[in-house]
C-alpha cells in the first residue's frame, strides 16, 4: 500500500529581516535590509503508513508547525520531496485539501453565534458534498461524538469539551484520510481529555484515518499514539514506538519504597530523590545498576513494607530528549 505521508530530505529555510537597535540602524535597514537565514527544517525524512497514529513532538520553535505546513502544501520546501496520499502537496494543494482534515486546538472552525449544524452545512458545501451526503455524514458523526443534543445550540453556549468534540466532527465531515491534530486537548480537564483520546482512537480504528498529532501533553502521546517522532532544532532526534521511547530510551526507574527501619543506599547509578523518615524515593539508572541489586541492598538493612517501581514520566522522557538534542548542536 502507498504510504500516507512520505518525506525525503526535506529542508526549509526562512529569511528573517534583522534590525539593529537605534535610529541610524533603522534608516540603514530601510535602504539596505539585512537578512538572517534560519534553518527551520534540516533535511528530515520519514514515512507514515496509512492507519498509523503518530505523535509529533517538539518544543516551541523546533520546526513542528513548519513541517505540518510543508506537508499540507502551505509552504514550499527548499529541498526534498513530499508525497501525501501520492500527491505533491504544493502542486495539488486544493486536491489534497479534500482528503485531509485539520483540528487546531486554538483556532475554531465553527461559527460562534450559530449552532454547529450550520457550520457543518457550510463545511459540507465547501467540500462540494451534496446536502444529502452532508446530512448522512453529520448523522454518523453526531452519533460517534455524541453531539446530537448540541447540534441546535449556538457554539458560544457550549463548554470547551463540547466544542472540541464538535470541532473534531467538523474536521471529519469530508471523510479525510489523514487527520492533523494540533494540540487538541489544550485546556481540557482530565475526564474530557480521556474522552477526546478515546474518540481519536475510535476514528482511527473504525475509519482507518491516519492520525498526525502534535501535543505537549505526555498523556495524549502515551495513550493514543503507537509511534512518536521528536523534532528539535529542525532535525528529527527520535523516531520509534512510544513504548520504546518510554522504556528503553531513558533507562531509568523510579523506586518508591517504605521501610520498617532506617535505611540508606550508596550505589553507582542510584540517586536518592526524596527521603522522609523510613520512606525513600530512588532514581535508578538501569545501564549502571539493576533494580534487583537496589532491592537486595535495601532488604539487607531492614524489611520492606511497600514498594512501587515505575518508569520515568513521559514529560521527563521528552525533556531529556530535548536536552540531548540541544547538546548535539
Amino acid at each position, binding site marked *: 500500500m502507498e504510504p500516507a505521508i512520505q518525506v525525503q530530505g526535506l529542508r526549509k529555510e526562512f*529569511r528573517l529581516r534583522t534590525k539593529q537597535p537605534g535610529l541610524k540602524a533603522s534608516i540603514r535597514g530601510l535602504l539596505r535590509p539585512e537578512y538572517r537565514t534560519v534553518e527551520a527544517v534540516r533535511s528530515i525524512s520519514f514515512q507514515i503508513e496509512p492507519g498509523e497514529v503518530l505523535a509529533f513532538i517538539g518544543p516551541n520553535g523546533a520546526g513542528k508547525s513548519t513541517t505540518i505546513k510543508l506537508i*499540507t*502544501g*502551505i*509552504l514550499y520546501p527548499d529541498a526534498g520531496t513530499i508525497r501525501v496520499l501520492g500527491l505533491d502537496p504544493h502542486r495539488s494543494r486544493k486536491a489534497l485539501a479534500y482528503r485531509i482534515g485539520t483540528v487546531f486546538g486554538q483556532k475554531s472552525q465553527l461559527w460562534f*453565534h450559530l449552532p454547529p449544524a450550520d457550520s457543518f452545512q*457550510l463545511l459540507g*458545501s465547501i467540500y462540494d458534498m451534496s446536502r444529502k451526503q452532508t446530512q448522512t455524514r453529520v448523522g454518523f458523526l453526531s452519533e460517534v461524538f455524541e453531539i446530537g443534543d448540541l447540534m441546535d445550540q449556538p457554539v458560544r453556549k457550549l463548554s470547551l469539551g463540547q466544542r472540541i468534540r464538535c470541532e473534531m466532527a467538523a474536521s471529519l465531515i469530508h471523510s479525510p484520510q489523514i487527520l492533523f491534530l494540533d494540540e487538541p486537548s489544550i485546556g481540557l480537564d482530565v475526564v474530557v481529555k480521556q474522552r477526546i483520546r478515546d474518540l481519536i482512537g475510535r476514528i482511527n480504528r473504525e475509519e482507518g484515518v491516519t492520525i498526525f498529532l502534535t501535543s505537549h501533553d505526555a498523556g495524549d502521546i502515551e495513550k493514543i499514539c503507537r509511534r512518536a517522532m521528536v523534532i528539535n532544532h529542525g532535525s528529527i532526534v527520535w523516531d520509534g514506538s512510544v513504548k520504546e521511547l518510554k522504556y528503553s530510551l531513558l533507562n531509568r526507574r523510579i523506586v518508591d519504597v517504605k521501610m520498617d527501619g532506617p535505611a540508606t543506599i550508596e550505589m553507582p547509578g542510584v540517586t536518592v530523590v526524596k527521603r522522609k523518615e523510613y520512606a525513600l524515593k530512588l532514581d535508578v539508572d538501569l545501564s549502571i545498576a539493576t533494580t534487583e541489586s537496589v532491592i537486595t541492598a535495601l532488604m539487607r538493612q531492614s524489611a520492606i513494607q511497600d514498594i512501587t517501581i515505575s518508569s520515568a514520566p513521559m514529560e521527563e522522557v521528552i525533556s531529556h530528549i530535548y536536552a540531548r538534542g540541544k547538546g548535539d548542536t
Partner: protein
Amino acid sequence: MTIRKYATIFSIAGRDQFVYLPSFLVRNVFFLIILFIFYSLWRVVYGDANTIAGFTMVQTLWYLTFTEAIELSQTRIFNPISQEVKDGTIAYSIARPYSYVLYWICRGMGENLVKVVPLLLEGFLIATIMVGPLPGYLSALPFGLIVIAGGILVGTTLQAIIGLLAFWFEEVMPFWWIVQKLIFVIGGLFIPIDFYPDWLARIARATPFAFAAYWPASTWVAFSRERFLITIGGQVFYLALFALVAALLFRAAVRKLHIQGG
C-alpha cells in the same frame, strides 16, 4: 457546485449577523443624528433656492440616507483578514478548497446585506418625517436596491484588498482611512458630486469611489435608465479591476509566505 459553496458562505454569514442586529440598530442612533445634522445644514444652504445643481432639498437629503446606508452597513472585513495575516492563522484558512478572497467577500456581503435593510428602513422613516417622501421612490426601488448592493460590493472588495496589504505593512488601518475619506469626499458620500465645480465633478464621477456612493444614491433619487446603466457598468468595471488586483496581490502574498514562513 462551486457557486453553491459561496452562496452557503453568504447565507451563513447573513444568519450569523442576525445575532448582532439588535445592538447594531441601537448603535444606529448615530445614523439619526448625522441625518439631522445634514438636514439642518442643507436647510440653511438651500434657503429659498428650489434646486442646487439640479437637486432639490428633498432629493439631497434622501441621497444622503442612501450613501450613509451604504457606508454604515459595511463590515470592516480588512480587520479579520489583516489579523489572520499577522497572527499566521491565514496559513490554515488558505488550505481549504476555496478562494480566500472570494470567501471573505461573500462573508462580508452576507453580513452587509442583512444590515443595509434596516438602515434603508430607518432612512426611509427619518427622511420622510424630516423632508417628506421622495418622488419616484417606489418605481426606482428595484433598481436602487441593485446599485446599492453593487456600491457595497465595490467598498467590500476594496476592503479585501486593504486587508491583504497586511502582508507588506504592519498596520493597514491608515489605508482604510484614506480610502474611506476618498469615498466621503470624492465619492460623494457627504455631498452630491454635482455640487462641485465642473472640472472636479467630472474627475470625481469617474473614480471607483463614486461608484461606491454617488452613483448608486443618485440613481435612486434621480432615476433614469442611462444613469442606472452607467452605474451598473462602472460598478462591473471596477469590480473586475479590483478582483484582478486582489487575485494578483493574493498570489504575491502566498509567494511571500513561502519565503518568509507563516
